[in-house]
């Protein structure tokens, strides 16, 4: 056991000290931070250009209702069309909005004359402003006012509750789907990136011919496990550092930009209100999101995530180690890599169908088979999986990685000492079955 520790420590230390590891570990959160900072910067600083738009209202509906909207600043004028056009052409104002005499319920023929093509944002703002003005005109005509309208508006909260499980946690499919997808994708990335690293490490030890010295001191199985665990710890370290550093950067970045949290929150609200919504609607949306997050069984998700993250990695890393021990060069790995990668990639491709029907047959079976269960089960968990299914999947996962590790150990002990042998599936099988 202490030999496994020596091996995994060497593996860990030598990887963590690598420049590439340090770069990836520290630059990735910086990148996140920079993106976030950019987003904040763009929403906080009011550097947006405003566009002066002359409104020539020939209908009589829009002129007295139109209000500034987003980047559009309106100025109602009363001039002949040709004069107005000429003025804009000479640079007086950015654009000319012409509302022809129109039928209130079928508004047609509205034109925006400009010197330069307007941006999408401006076009949207003008659209919205005209629509709002027309709606108000209609309200006037019907004798309605804002307070009447507000009293009609009704807010209902409907909580969806699952019938299975005593906890009866209510789920919201959107958030559940997002959480499931995120955890599934993280496991997928971890398996592929670090599994391949295990394979490369095993292969390098074999080709650099250090392995025979090592196996005269430790059992091949110890060597393999030390490697697999060492690489796993490197991966976990990187993930933890990413989380911590990104968290730190995200909490410090705003103050670095000179914005205090209050204005930020305000900015956030403004952003969420940017649509065609009123204050009430925005509040409702925020409530809903908070509520949904509260509904998710966070301890269960985090616990299962760590479980499937590790067992899934162990399951595949053993297979990767097996391939690494059998071949002499990277190019020989191709034929063995495909069958290993295929189930991993297929699991990710099944993401959509599984989210659509999280308790269907497909989802059930894929979350039981150890080849796909780490990814698929994580997608299902936020949608409330019956406890017996989760337990069975976890048990099968243990059986799965014990099996692959056993197989890998058997191939490994022979493979690492074989140089120049032409390896195919038949040979692998022979090694697997050969006696000690």
């Amino acid at each position, binding site marked *: 056991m202490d*030999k496994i520790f*020596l*091996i995994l420590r*060497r593996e860990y230390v*030598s990887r963590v000290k690598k420049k590439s590891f340090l770069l990836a570990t520290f630059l990735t959160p910086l990148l996140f931070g920079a993106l976030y900072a950019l987003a904040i910067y763009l929403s906080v600083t009011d550097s947006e250009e405003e566009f002066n738009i002359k409104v020539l209202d020939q209908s009589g509906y829009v002129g007295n209702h139109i209000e500034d909207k987003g980047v559009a600043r309106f100025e109602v004028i009363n001039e002949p069309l040709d004069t107005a056009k000429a003025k804009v052409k000479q640079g007086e104002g950015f654009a000319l909005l012409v509302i022809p005499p129109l039928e209130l319920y079928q508004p047609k023929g509205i034109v925006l004359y400009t010197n330069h093509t307007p941006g999408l944002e401006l076009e949207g703002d003008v659209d919205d402003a005209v629509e709002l003005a027309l709606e108000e005109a209609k309200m006037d005509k019907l004798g309605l006012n804002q307070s009447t309208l507000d009293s009609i508006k009704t807010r209902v909260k409907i909580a969806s509750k699952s019938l299975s499980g005593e906890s009866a946690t209510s789920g919201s499919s959107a958030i559940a789907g997002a959480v499931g997808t995120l955890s599934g994708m993280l496991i997928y990335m971890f398996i592929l990136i670090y599994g391949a690293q295990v394979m490369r490490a095993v292969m390098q030890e074999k080709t*650099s*011919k*250090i392995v*025979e*010295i*090592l*196996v*005269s*001191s*430790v*059992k091949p199985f110890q060597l393999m496990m030390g490697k697999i665990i060492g690489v796993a710890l490197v991966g976990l370290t990187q993930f933890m550092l990413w989380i911590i550093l990104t968290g730190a950067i995200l909490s410090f970045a705003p103050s670095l930009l000179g914005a205090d949290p209050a204005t930020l929150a305000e900015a956030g609200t403004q952003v969420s209100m940017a649509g065609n919504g009123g204050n009430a609607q925005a509040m409702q949306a925020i409530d809903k999101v908070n509520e949904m997050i509260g509904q998710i069984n966070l301890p269960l998700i985090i616990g299962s995530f760590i479980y499937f993250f590790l067992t899934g990695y162990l399951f595949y890393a053993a297979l990767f180690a097996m391939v690494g021990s059998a071949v002499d060069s990277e190019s020989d790995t191709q034929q063995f890599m495909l069958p290993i990668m295929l189930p991993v990639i297929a699991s990710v491709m099944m993401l959509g169908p599984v989210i659509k029907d999280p308790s269907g047959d497909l989802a059930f079976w894929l979350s039981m088979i150890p080849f796909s269960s780490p990814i698929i089960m994580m997608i299902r968990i936020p949608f409330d999986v019956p406890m017996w299914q989760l337990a069975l999947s976890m048990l099968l996962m243990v059986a799965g990685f014990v099996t692959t590790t056993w197989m890998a150990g058997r191939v490994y002990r022979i493979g690492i*000492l074989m*140089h120049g042998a032409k390896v195919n599936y038949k040979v692998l099988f*022979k090694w697997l079955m*050969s*006696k*000690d």
Partner: protein
Amino acid sequence: MQDILRINEISKSYANHQALSRVSMAIPKQSIFGLLGPNGAGKTTLIRIINQIISSDAGTVTINGELLNPAHVRVIGYLPEERGLYKKMKVGEHLLYFAQLKGLGRKEAVTRIKAWFKKLDIPDWLDKKVEDLSKGMQQKVQFIGTVLHNPDLIILDEPFSGFDPINANIIKDEILELREKGSTIIFSTHRMESVEELCDHIALIDNSHKILDGPKKDIKNRFRSQTFSVIHEGDMGALDSHYQVVNTQSLEDGLLETKVQIKDETDSNRLLKHLIAQTKVVGFNEVIPSINDIFIQAVKEATHG
């Protein structure tokens, strides 16, 4: 002399060939034991079994009277023929890693590494990366890694390959010194001159069978064929029926060398007397077979007999 290692009726087969067939041998303590044999004879398989890298199909191995077990890893130092180092690791860390895998404590290991560096006249390489060393330097580091934990039994597979003659000599002296200090060395090689020079026992394996073993002196005696080399001036003439001329070749200065084999009970003195009567003898000595000759002859006999 006590035996440190006894190999008893070891057999091992792979899927499609027999690597060792009922091989037995005993390796005396404090000896330098040459394990010889053509390529593919089974030497590496035997060495791997002793190192518990693979296990035998049948037979036993005992070290100091105990059946081979995992604790023996500490007792053995193994330098395989196929050997390498982690290129990116520092020399000091690397040696420390090897020593710790053998069960040595960190402090003890560091002291010994420094002592070996001094002994082998190695400058301060502790913080140098392995990839920055020349091949010969790397070989020295590997040798230190093999003996760092003071093993009782040191197994060296082609230890001199890759060494220049100067460094090979340094290693040779170290091997002799290790033996003086009580270690036993098993030495597998194709270089017969180093076997001749270093080994006091040899065993010869061919085609999975052990065909020869024992003290080098005894084996050499066994292969003596009562043949003498005679250097003489002028024709030797016909010898009588007790003797047989094997061959004659001319040397420089008109001298001739004739190899004469004694066919029956007579001894070298009588031969010499007989020769003196026939020709002018300049030199006379027994032809002692070299290990190389023995190797070739034994393998030939094993293959054809």
